[in-house]
C-alpha cells in the first residue's frame, strides 16, 4: 500500500479555465434548467480552446463494430421496462409512442398469387394503390376507396409479377411472367409502351426518374430509358440467378440488386453500362428480395434474406461494409423504413421458429425490436407504404391486404435526406 495517497492535482488533466470560472462566478448557482445555454457555451469553449499544453485537439468517438451480442445487465432491464410499457393499456405512460395492435383496414385480395418472388403492389404518390391479383391488375384509390380494374391478362399462363409506379405516379410499370414489360398511363387506362429485352419473368422493377430498371429470371438487369425510341440503355449480366430485388437509392445515384443466388450488388448509376459493380456482398445465405434505402442516411441500405437466412443486414454502401446484422429467424419478404421515426419494419413469411407471418418493428440504429404486428393466417408476400409514410400494407398469401398505421404520428417535415446534416451530429438529437 502506498503512503500518502492523497489527491494530487495534475495540471495536464484539468480544465483550469473552466475550474477558475466556476470557482469565481458567484452570480448564479449551476442551474440545470439553463443547460442548453451552458452546453452551448461549453461547446464554444471546447472548440475555441487549446488544452493546457497549448495544443489544439479534436475529439472523436469510436463506432467500429457492434459492441456485443449480449446486452449489458442494466440495458436489458431498461429495455424490458420500455417494452413492457408498450404493451400497457395506458399508452400515456410509455416512453414510446403507441403502436396499433390491429389493422386499420383489411381488403380482400382474391387470387393473390402465393409467390415469394413477385412484387405485386405499389402505392403511388397519387394515393392510388396498384395491386396484381392473379391475372388481373386493380387500382384502389385510397382517398375514396374506389376500385378500378386496369387490366386482365387473358389465357391463363401469364400474369403480372411486378408492379411499380413511376416517381411522379403518372406511369405504371408492369412486368409479367412471360417476360414482357409494359408501361401504362393510368389516367387514360391505356398501354403506352411495350419494353423489350428480357427472356424470363420480370419479378422486380424500380424507377429512377426516366429510367426504369427491371430484373428478371433471365438473370439480367436492364435499364430502360422510357423516353428514348430505343429504350434499352444498358443490360447488365452479373447475377447468377433471378434478380428478385431492385431498389434505387433515395438520391438516385446507386442501385441495389438482390439475387436468388444470395448475392447483393451495389451499382453506381454512371458506371452501370460497363457492368462494373461498386460492391458485391455475399453475406446472405438465401435469396435477397427485401431491399430498402434509409431515408435519413443516403448511404445506408437494409437488406433481408429468405428462409435459410432470415437476417436483416444494414450496409454502408459507400464502403461496402455490413454495419449490423440481426437474426429474425424468419423469411423476410419486405422492408420499409419509417420516415417519421427512426425505425424499420420487416415483413415475414415462413419460419421454423419465430416471427412467422408477422410484421416486426425495429428501432434504428439500435435494431432493438419495438414490437410485432400481424394477423395474417399465412405468409406475408409483399409490403408497401403510403406516400405520406404513415401506413404500411402487407399482402398475404391468405388473400388479404392489411393496412397498418404503424409509422405515425407524423413528424413535421419528416426525416428525409435534407435533414441529414442535423442528424450527422446525433449527440444532441433524441429522435423519438
Amino acid at each position, binding site marked *: 500500500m502506498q503512503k500518502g495517497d492523497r489527491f494530487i492535482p495534475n495540471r495536464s488533466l484539468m480544465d483550469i479555465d473552466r475550474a477558475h470560472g466556476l470557482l469565481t462566478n458567484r452570480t448564479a448557482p449551476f442551474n440545470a434548467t439553463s443547460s442548453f445555454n451552458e452546453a452551448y457555451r461549453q461547446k464554444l469553449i471546447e472548440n475555441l480552446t487549446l488544452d493546457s499544453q497549448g495544443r489544439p485537439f479534436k475529439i472523436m468517438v469510436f463506432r467500429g463494430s457492434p459492441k456485443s451480442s449480449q446486452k449489458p445487465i442494466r440495458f436489458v432491464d431498461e429495455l424490458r421496462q420500455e417494452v413492457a410499457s408498450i404493451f400497457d393499456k395506458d399508452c400515456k405512460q410509455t416512453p414510446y409512442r403507441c403502436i396499433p395492435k390491429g389493422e386499420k383496414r383489411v381488403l380482400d385480395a382474391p387470387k393473390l398469387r402465393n409467390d415469394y418472388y413477385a412484387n405485386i403492389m405499389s402505392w403511388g404518390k397519387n394515393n392510388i394503390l396498384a395491386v396484381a391479383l392473379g391475372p388481373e391488375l386493380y387500382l384502389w384509390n385510397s382517398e375514396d376507396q374506389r376500385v378500378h380494374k386496369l387490366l386482365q391478362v387473358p389465357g391463363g399462363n401469364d400474369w403480372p409479377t411486378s408492379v411499380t409506379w413511376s416517381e411522379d405516379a403518372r406511369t405504371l410499370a408492369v412486368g409479367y411472367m412471360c417476360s414482357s414489360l409494359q408501361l401504362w398511363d393510368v389516367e387514360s387506362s391505356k398501354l403506352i409502351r411495350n419494353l423489350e429485352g428480357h427472356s424470363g419473368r420480370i419479378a422486380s422493377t424500380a424507377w429512377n426518374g426516366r429510367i426504369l430498371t427491371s430484373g428478371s429470371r433471365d438473370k439480367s438487369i436492364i435499364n430502360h430509358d422510357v423516353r428514348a425510341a430505343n429504350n434499352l440503355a444498358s443490360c447488365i449480366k452479373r447475377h447468377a440467378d433471378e434478380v428478385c430485388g431492385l431498389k434505387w437509392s433515395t438520391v438516385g445515384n446507386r442501385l441495389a440488386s438482390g439475387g436468388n443466388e444470395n448475392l447483393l450488388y451495389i451499382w453506381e448509376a454512371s458506371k452501370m453500362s460497363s457492368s462494373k459493380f461498386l460492391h458485391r456482398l455475399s453475406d446472405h445465405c438465401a435469396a435477397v428480395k427485401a431491399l430498402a434505402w434509409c431515408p435519413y442516411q443516403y448511404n445506408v441500405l437494409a437488406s433481408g434474406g429468405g428462409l435459410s437466412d432470415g437476417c436483416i443486414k444494414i450496409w454502408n454502401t459507400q464502403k461496402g461494409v455490413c454495419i449490423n446484422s440481426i437474426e429474425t429467424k424468419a423469411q423476410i419478404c419486405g422492408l420499409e423504413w419509417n420516415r417519421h421515426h427512426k425505425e424499420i419494419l420487416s415483413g415475414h413469411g415462413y419460419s421454423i421458429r419465430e416471427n412467422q407471418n408477422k410484421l416486426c418493428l425495429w428501432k434504428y440504429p439500435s435494431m432493438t*425490436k419495438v414490437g410485432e404486428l400481424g394477423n395474417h393466417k399465412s405468409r406475408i408476400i409483399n409490403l408497401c407504404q403510403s406516400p405520406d409514410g404513415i401506413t404500411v400494407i402487407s399482402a398475404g398469401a391468405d388473400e388479404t391486404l392489411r393496412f397498418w398505421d404503424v409509422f405515425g404520428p407524423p413528424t413535421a417535415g419528416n426525416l428525409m435526406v435534407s435533414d441529414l446534416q442535423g442528424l450527422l451530429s446525433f449527440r444532441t438529437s433524441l429522435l423519438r
Partner: protein
Amino acid sequence: MASRSVAKDIITLRGSAAIVSEFFGYAANSILYNRGVYPEESFAKVKKYGLPMLLTQDEGVKSFISNLTAQLSEWLEAGKLQRVVLVIMSKASNEVLERWNFSIETDGEVVEKGVSREKSDKEIMREIQAIMRQIASSITYLPCLDEPFSCPHTSFGHGSSSSAGGFIVSLPLDVLFTGVFDVLAYTDTDVAVPFTWIESDPKLIANPQMVKLHSFDTKIHKVDTLVSYKNDEWDEQ
C-alpha cells in the same frame, strides 16, 4: 547507495505504441468488468502484467476493443494521440456517469527522428500493474452504477420483444447509437477521422469528482490516468 543495475531494454516508437494500446485494451476490459457494464460470466481470466486480468469473451466486445486498439496504436505511432477516454453512460438518460481519462504525452523527438529510448520492460510492467490494481480497487469509492429497475438475474427471454438475437449496435460513419459505454479519442487536429469514428463532443460530467490514479511511462509515451464521476446524489440530501 548501492544501485542495482537494472537491465534496460530498448523501446522503439512502435514498441511503445504497442505497449500503450495493449494497456488500453486491458484497462478497458478491467473497467467493463469492475463497473459491471457486462456480466461477470462473460469474462475469462488471463495472466498479464503479473496479475490475473479479466478479458471479455463476448465476440462483439472483443472485436470492438481490438479494432479500437489497432487504431490507437496507429495514432500513437504517429504521435498524434493526446487522450483516450472511456465514458460510461446511463442508457435511460444518456447522462455521463463516469469518465476514465487516459492522457498521453508523447516524446516529439522520437516521432520526428525515429530514435529509440531505453527503459526496463519490467519496470514499465510494474507501473502498469499499479494502475490495474487501482482500477480494480476503484469500486470501493466509485458510486454504484445500478439503475433503479435492475433485476438480479441476467437472462432475457426468447420470443419476447426484447431480444431476437439483437446486437448493441454501434454504426460507423453516420447516425449512431450511444451505448452504455463509449470510447473517445482526443487527437491532433490534422488527424483524418477514420470511417469507423465520428467527431464527438467531450461527454463531460457536470461538477465531477475526480481521482487521479498512477501513471506509467515508456520514455516515449507517458500515460496519466484519471477517473471522474458524477457526484453521488444521496450526499446532497
